[in-house]
């Protein structure tokens, strides 16, 4: 078993490495753009006007309510197939991009991530204490300023643990990319199994790499969480709580 593990790592290290890079790439891009897209979605979602609320609601409902692998297949084989049937598209310069599975895969992940993150953000926005909002209004803040100074900072503080969770979830979700021919880490492990008939060794190698990624992520996100909650730490140093410190 141990020798087989060394064999797998020694012979197929480039496959695993390339798989690792693609996994990270998919993760970073989907989380970044997914989060950016989630912000307007979440803001619209908490609107009091029904017709503004409806669009993000439908979007989130569909993307959270269907399996990711189904979305991936719909996008790659469904939408991709439709695009390929457009007259003359295959001779157009954009075909080099449109035939590539990479973009379909990324788009699906971005949309899926944004749906989940938007819902988390909605919870955060709605839980900002109403007293703070009233105070903002009393100070004469415009809605824009209220969002950037009060609501968003408060929201990030509150949603960060759930957001961290979602990033890790997205990391796992990238393993589905291999079903549409993108050979990320899980795809690489599968390929190794097909070659060597050593499923334990291949999946343990990939599993350990996933664990390392998750460890690094958790560590980094914990640091950011501490930064986001810096005001609470300052509160702890106030005389009111000094007794607890001296006890």
């Amino acid at each position, binding site marked *: 078993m141990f020798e087989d593990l060394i064999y797998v790592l020694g012979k197929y290290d480039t496959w695993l490495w390339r798989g690792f890079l693609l996994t990270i790439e998919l993760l970073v891009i989907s989380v970044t753009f997914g989060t950016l897209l989630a912000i307007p979605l979440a803001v619209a979602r908490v609107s009091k006007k029904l017709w503004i609320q409806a669009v993000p609601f439908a979007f989130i409902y569909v993307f959270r309510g269907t399996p990711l692998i189904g979305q991936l297949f719909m996008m790659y*084989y469904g939408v*991709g*197939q439709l695009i*390929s*049937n457009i007259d003359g598209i*295959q001779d157009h310069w954009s*075909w080099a991009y449109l*035939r*590539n*599975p990479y973009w379909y895969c990324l788009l699906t992940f971005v949309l899926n991530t944004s749906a989940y993150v938007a819902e988390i953000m909605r919870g955060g926005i709605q839980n900002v204490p109403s007293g703070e909002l009233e105070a903002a209004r009393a100070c004469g803040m415009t809605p824009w300023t209220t969002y950037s100074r009060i609501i968003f900072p408060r929201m990030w503080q509150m949603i960060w643990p759930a957001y961290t969770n979602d990033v890790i979830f997205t990391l796992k979700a990238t393993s589905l990319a*291999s*079903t549409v*021919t993108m*050979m990320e880490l899980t*795809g690489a492990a*599968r*390929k190794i*199994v*097909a*070659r060597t008939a050593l499923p334990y060794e291949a999946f343990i190698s990939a599993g350990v790499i996933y664990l390392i990624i998750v460890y690094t992520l958790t560590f980094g996100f914990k640091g950011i969480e501490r930064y986001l909650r810096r005001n609470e730490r300052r509160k702890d140093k106030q005389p009111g709580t000094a007794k607890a410190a001296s006890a």
Partner: protein
Amino acid sequence: MKNWIKVASAAAIGIALSASAANAAWEKVVVATEGAYPPFNMVDENGKLIGFDVDFANKLCETAKIECEIVAQDWDGMIPGLLAKKYDAIIAQMSITEERKRSIDFTNYYSNTPAVFVGKDTMKIEAYKDGEVMEDALDGMVIGVQRSTTHANFLEDNFPNIEIRMYGTQDEALLDLTAGRVDATLADSGTLDDWLKSDAAKGYGFVSNQFAPSEWFGDGAGIGIRQEDQDLKEILNKALAEMLANGSYDELNKKYFPAINLHPN
């Protein structure tokens, strides 16, 4: 240990043979096939076994001048049934593998559906010629293939300058072929031949020669026999060689697969 058994059984057979007349032990052979793998073996409306394997078995017995009875057996119980002596030989497209060789023995291979490229009718691929891989034949192309197959391994090992797209099923690779997202696909000619008969395949066809180098594609399907029946193996191998030499194999091949060479090596 295994060798010891082989030697012992060979000795036992030797004694048995010298005691009786040669071939006398094999006047009648019961052959099992699956009956659910068209067009190789299947049952017609009357429940009669038909197909390439059935015709081949009949012709083989005729050539070997032995009487044959063909019976149907589910795939899962194929090897246990042979070992339990319910029949003496398996002719059911069973691939020769090391794992199976641990419990049974095989004759030489009698059929091997070769690999072939399928793409737009207008293209031409020469990836394997005269026992040599043409490494640059596919340069710059995007080739679709089913993952975990011998075909995927063949592409990965031999063509460094192509983009290989790996699919969960061959159907998905064919979908992407018709969508123009891969330039060609490499797979088993039997499967592809079937697909080419469908409407979706209009404008597509075999675009390369058919090849099956055993280094990548294994040894094909053989006739399964019990390990102790080395005399039967010899009889069947001899008859098979005769069929290949006198053209009767070729005739059968053409009857079922006009476009495929089932005995490429």
